[in-house]
């Protein structure tokens, strides 16, 4: 499989009132053909800037962004416009032309590419059919709901037969139910049209639901990148841990007490390991919090437990979990 995008040591610096601000610091990653690639981070982490370097809406300060081995920075204005026909984008605010009908909006990229009127109308209708809004073709966007507007934007994005679809917080303005529907639609398009999708989001649930791989951006830097199931089961960077694991609000009930986090993946989530612990060692732990999530049908979970006071007991318990193949890490107070 070849790479759709390849970013090498990308830096982006803004100058504002003489002050410099590094929005991206040394970001290197690749997006592979056919995958759904998530880019997640807190707001202000630089993910919107990052996605805009992929179609050169933002110029990089240094480093290179390659689209199918073509360095975007080397392209002349006309060549860049040509390439942009292959890189579609949808936005948080939908960005439809309100004074034009749904059909006319869906036609836009084809009109820009110079496709004849009859042909582009037909194509735009096909795209509206895919997103389930063919019956709204003569309606103006103001009459549509948020979810419907995003569907029109997706139809518009697909019209020019792009190789990749960039989604900039495409579901952030939508409620959870509509978000789910839009994500299902994106997944369907990804599978049926073999369309590579890059998704920018601050919501873990979006990544969880449809992404194959994920990059975590923290303060302009790439904190971690990998398969979603790896990052979710074993986050290495602090930024990843913060996103994957909810923070622990508890202090140990005794100053000498210890709080640990037990992380388990699909192979262990069906085992009653706490019960086993009690049965085998006779020691008890206090469960402070626990949660599981399903990534691609496999259950991942974590549990925060407080261990008994005796350090001997603590060791016994940790050994029991570790031997069982669970990942145990110390939790700092108020992490």
């Amino acid at each position, binding site marked *: 499989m070849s790479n759709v995008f390849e970013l090498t040591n990308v830096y982006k610096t803004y100058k504002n009132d003489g002050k410099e601000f590094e929005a991206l610091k040394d970001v290197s990653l690749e997006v592979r053909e056919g995958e759904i690639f998530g880019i997640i981070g807190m707001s202000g982490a630089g993910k919107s800037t990052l996605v805009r370097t992929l*179609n050169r809406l933002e110029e990089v300060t240094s480093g290179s962004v390659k689209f199918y081995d073509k360095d975007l920075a080397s392209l002349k204005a006309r060549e860049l416009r040509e390439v942009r*026909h292959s890189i579609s984008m949808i936005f948080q605010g939908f*960005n439809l*032309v*309100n004074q034009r009908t749904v059909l006319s909006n869906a036609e836009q990229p084809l009109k820009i590419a110079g496709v004849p009127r009859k042909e582009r109308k037909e194509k735009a209708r096909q795209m509206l059919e895919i997103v389930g809004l063919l019956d709204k073709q003569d309606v103006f966007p103001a009459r549509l709901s948020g979810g419907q507007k995003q569907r029109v934007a997706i139809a518009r994005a697909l019209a020019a037969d792009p190789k990749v679809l960039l989604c900039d917080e495409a579901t952030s303005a939508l409620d959870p139910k509509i978000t789910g529907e839009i994500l299902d639609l994106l997944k369907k398009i990804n599978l049926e049209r073999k369309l590579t999708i890059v998704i920018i989001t601050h919501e873990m649930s979006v990544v969880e639901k449809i992404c194959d791989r994920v990059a975590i951006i923290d303060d302009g830097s790439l904190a971690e990148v990998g398969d979603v199931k790896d990052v979710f089961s074993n986050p290495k960077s602090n930024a990843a841990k913060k996103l994957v694991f909810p923070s622990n609000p508890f202090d140990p009930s005794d100053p000498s007490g210890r709080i640990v986090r037990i992380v388990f993946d699909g192979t262990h989530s069906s085992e009653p390991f706490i019960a086993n612990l009690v049965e085998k060692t006779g020691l008890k732990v206090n469960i402070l919090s626990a949660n599981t999530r399903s990534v691609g049908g496999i259950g991942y979970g974590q549990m925060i437990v407080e261990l008994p006071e005796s350090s001997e007991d603590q060791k016994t318990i940790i050994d029991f979990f570790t031997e069982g193949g669970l990942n145990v890490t110390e939790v700092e107070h108020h992490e």
Partner: protein
Amino acid sequence: MSEYIRQAILSGILETFEMTFFASLFSYIVGMPLGVILYATSKGRLLENRIVNAVIGFIVNVTRSLPFLILLVLLIPFTRFVVGSSIGTVASIVPLTVGAIPIVARMVESSLNEVNPGIIEAATSMGASPVYTIIHFIIPEATPSLLQGGAINVATVLGYSAMAGVIGGGGLGAIALQYGYYRYQKDVLWTTVTLLIIMVMLIQEIGIRLSKKTRKV
């Protein structure tokens, strides 16, 4: 009111319409592109260009800050050069046009500024060139606002046209001035003023209706 004055008022109405129509038309032919350039070359816009923006902005500001009456007088030689005379209805169209151009330019600029920048980003991401984006995305999206601005501009031109009477222009303004003011014929004054008010209201109403009809939001 004598039959003579009634006739004069009637032709005055036509002259006022003539001046307003042509001056508005010509001022849009020049002012609209200027407004688009002002918009597109300003900071952070598609064709950002400080020098072009500063030069056009300066000219527009200077012409706009001149009181129209002064502009009328200043433009007499230019008017004579363009139409061969400096008095009459046709001659009035020249200073009216010149006076309206900067207003139109700023009005167009501000209408375009209202367009959601996200639409421009979307157009750019689709591979549209800056000029294409302006013609096919920004101007259509700004149409209701442009029409609303248009009504205000036409009403302003109509108001200015009345002033042209001072330096020998035609129309209702000239009649109001000659009969109503210099000859103390209050009935003529009030008739012409009422007519002018009705005309402005008419233009305003048409503009608002057109704007509403096109607005899809």
